[in-house]
């Protein structure tokens, strides 16, 4: 069983997340929508630099910009983050099957040992 994941999009999500400023921006947006000015406040970065990070997040589908006037507040789009978790979850059935085999193998070892003893 594998989980269907859009590879290109997942790759984009990871690229967007592989930067501490962008992760901090997303963490801030988890508390609620904010304008670019508000997002820039905690960072020693220029507005254009922050805008650039926001554009990367927008392209990755992680941030949505509002349409209202010049402020255009940013909001978190969480759906792609759900996919990020799935690569690890794809391993779950693999490990479950492995441990089923370990169980069988242990039983086989146990039987083999008992057979030797009774012989």
């Amino acid at each position, binding site marked *: 069983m594998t989980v269907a994941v859009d590879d290109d999009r997942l790759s984009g999500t990871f690229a967007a997340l*592989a930067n501490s400023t962008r992760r901090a921006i*997303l963490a801030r947006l988890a508390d609620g929508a904010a304008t670019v000015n508000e997002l820039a406040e905690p960072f020693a970065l220029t507005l254009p630099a922050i805008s650039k990070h926001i554009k990367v997040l927008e392209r990755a589908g992680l941030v949505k910009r509002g349409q209202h006037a010049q402020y255009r507040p940013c909001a978190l789009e969480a759906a792609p983050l759900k996919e*990020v978790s799935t690569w690890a979850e794809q391993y779950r059935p693999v490990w479950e*099957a492995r*441990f089923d085999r370990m169980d069988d193998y242990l039983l086989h070892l146990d039987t083999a040992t008992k057979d030797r003893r009774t012989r």
Partner: protein
Amino acid sequence: MTDTGRSHDAVTIERSFNASADLIWQMWTDPAHFAAWYGPEGATISVAKMDVRVGGTRLVRMEVRTPDGPVQMWFTGEYREVVENERLVYTESMSDENGNVLAPSDLGMPAGHPTTTEVRVELVDVGGRTQMTMTHAGIPADSPGAVGWAMALDKLAAYVTAQGL
């Protein structure tokens, strides 16, 4: 499902085995035992290196039969924590037969798959049986520190959960 306090990009499985912690430890650290169960089904595992001590190397070959003939894959890594019969932590990356790490995307793995992952096995003796907790976690290559990464993602994971996604 018990999923509290765990990093977002990890899978944790708990199992109870009717065997001693000593025997379960051997399942992970003895090449012959490891090869017997690791699988997957239809694959043949052989252990080239299994130097079970902190900083020691592991190199495992997996051979899968395909209609075009056998295909070999290699996995390498390093042991990070070795506490006999209690705790084993090792890293894992896809590699060539000499243990040179290869990028997962070059080997047809889904994009976003971390180059290096970590497997953590914890064993607890419960009256002759053994409780085993295995965690397989990704270590994102570009992350400056796994801790900072996990903290940021945990907050986002809580948000995702709250949104019912």
